[in-house]
């Protein structure tokens, strides 16, 4: 309580004025929306679309929105691991001594940076991940697992196994897309390592690979943790794009809910809140971790 009192005692009259203006402003917007919008709010239905009571199985279950949220989290985790691996390779390639390698990495990056994400997603999906899934016959394999009994471990990691190919293509598309930006971060990290470090490594007889492996990358990776964390949060938000290729994540499930129940605003506001909670929570967590490493 003393904290709250302290907080209020610090406020001066302009602060109160600003708060009052904001309240009036948002109140006015809300009022005009309510006046012109012919809409029946049905917020009471939303909780049952997060955790619902299954009338057939007689048990609580994760309904559309929670299923979508879990899928988004799964996809984001797998995609960021893959993007980190690909991005590191790309970042190293960007600093390579070989011109061809450098140019290839640069071409990839410039393509992704200068084409809208939606287009990139479609191109990667139809030309790349789709082909890969067909070539590996993933659809048949995952259906085989889906038909087995007792597959809770698979379900925990990948959700509905019948949707596994679409999950994988979502992960691949997202990872390929984000790897370009992760690659740029890694490159910046590598280039921030003073030349002296590299020269010292070479002078004690390390090969280029050893120099990268033992001297440059460990330092570079530590330096790029904050921007990398930021990129991870961006990736979670970007994951909504893959709803376009019908990956059953949060945004797609919301579209389905809206199509079935017409709760346009309730559903989208809830989804926005989910994204906000996840992204904001992570950014606070990363900020705290960063503080921790600094004070050490």
């Amino acid at each position, binding site marked *: 309580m003393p904290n709250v009192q302290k907080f209020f005692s610090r406020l001066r009259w302009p602060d109160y004025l600003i708060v009052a203006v904001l309240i009036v402003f948002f109140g006015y917007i809300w009022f005009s929306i309510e006046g012109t919008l012919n809409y029946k709010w049905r917020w009471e239905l939303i909780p049952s679309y997060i955790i619902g009571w299954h009338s057939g199985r007689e048990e609580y279950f994760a309904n559309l929105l929670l299923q979508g949220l879990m899928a988004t989290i799964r996809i984001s985790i797998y995609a960021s691991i893959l993007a980190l691996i690909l991005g590191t390779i790309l970042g190293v390639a960007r600093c390579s001594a070989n011109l061809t390698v450098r*140019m290839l990495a640069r071409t990839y990056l410039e393509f992704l940076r200068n084409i809208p994400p939606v287009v990139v997603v479609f191109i990667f999906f139809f030309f790349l991940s789709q082909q890969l899934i067909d070539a590996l016959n993933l659809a048949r394999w995952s*259906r085989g697992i889906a038909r087995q009994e007792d597959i809770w471990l698979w379900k925990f990691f990948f959700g509905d196994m019948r949707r596994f190919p679409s999950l994988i293509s979502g992960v691949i598309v997202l990872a390929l897309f984000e790897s370009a930006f992760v690659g740029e971060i890694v490159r910046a990290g590598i280039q921030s390592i003073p030349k002296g470090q590299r020269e010292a490594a070479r002078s004690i007889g390390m090969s280029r690979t050893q120099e990268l492996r033992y001297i440059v990358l460990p330092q570079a990776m530590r330096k790029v943790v904050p921007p990398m964390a930021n990129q991870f949060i961006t990736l979670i938000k970007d994951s909504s794009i893959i709803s376009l290729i019908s990956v059953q994540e949060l945004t797609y499930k919301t579209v*389905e809910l809206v*199509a*079935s*129940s017409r709760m*346009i605003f309730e559903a989208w506001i809830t989804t926005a809140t989910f994204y906000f909670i996840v992204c904001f929570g992570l950014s606070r967590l990363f900020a705290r971790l960063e503080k921790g490493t600094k004070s050490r």
Partner: protein
Amino acid sequence: MKLPKKLMGMALAATAALGLAVPASAQDQSVIETIKQDGVIRIGLSLFVPWSMRNKNGDLIGYELDVGRKLAEDMGVEVEFTPTAWDGIIPALVSGNFDVIISGMSYTPQRNLTVNFSNPYAFTGLAILANKDMTAGMSLEDMNSPDVTFAARRGATPAVVIAEKFPKAKLLLFDEDGASTQEVLNGNAHATMASQPTPNREVGRNPDVLTVIEAPLFDPRGEGFVMRKGDPDALNYFNNWIAQQWRTGWLEERHNYWFATEDWADQVAQ
């Protein structure tokens, strides 16, 4: 020496890009054989009340689902429904994501250039769902004016029909039908067009604001199963199945249940 090396890098990149872009060769085998081999029929659909929708348990229900499940049962295989965004449903079929689209897709000459349609398993026509106050006293001709705004789902048949029948009117495009209806409710658009019985059901829900304009159904059409081209076996199988279900009256009975009654309404949060 610098330039050729640079050029070679570029050439390499270009070849790599091209190599990735070559699509896999299409399957020669009939989709019916694939279905038998895998023991599963994969059906693509896009959610659209009352064709297909999520009930309160998050499960798929609707006319399409009844048709798909019965079809799979008669074939003696499992059924796998793949909900897909409407925009991408034909590319997804062509690239082999599923075996057939059963999603209330009506025949159009343009679509038929890319994919094959079976005989109709449902018939619908479009009606105009209008804002009562805004269109009071208007005739159909009056609605073809720059002062009138229509709303419709992007890429769907109503959008095309509106542009054709009401060329002077403004047309707002949205990604799903809920948004177009909402615009009419809000008074931002005069009217939208949708397959019956959706307009009648919307009027039932908002009798004070909405009305269905009296007119013969626009663009009456049949909806068929949609499959990849060059597969006479599949076309034959589905056509015969549909013909048989019409003869036994099963399709008509199911169609009536979903389109003429509201018995299913309490399963969905509407």
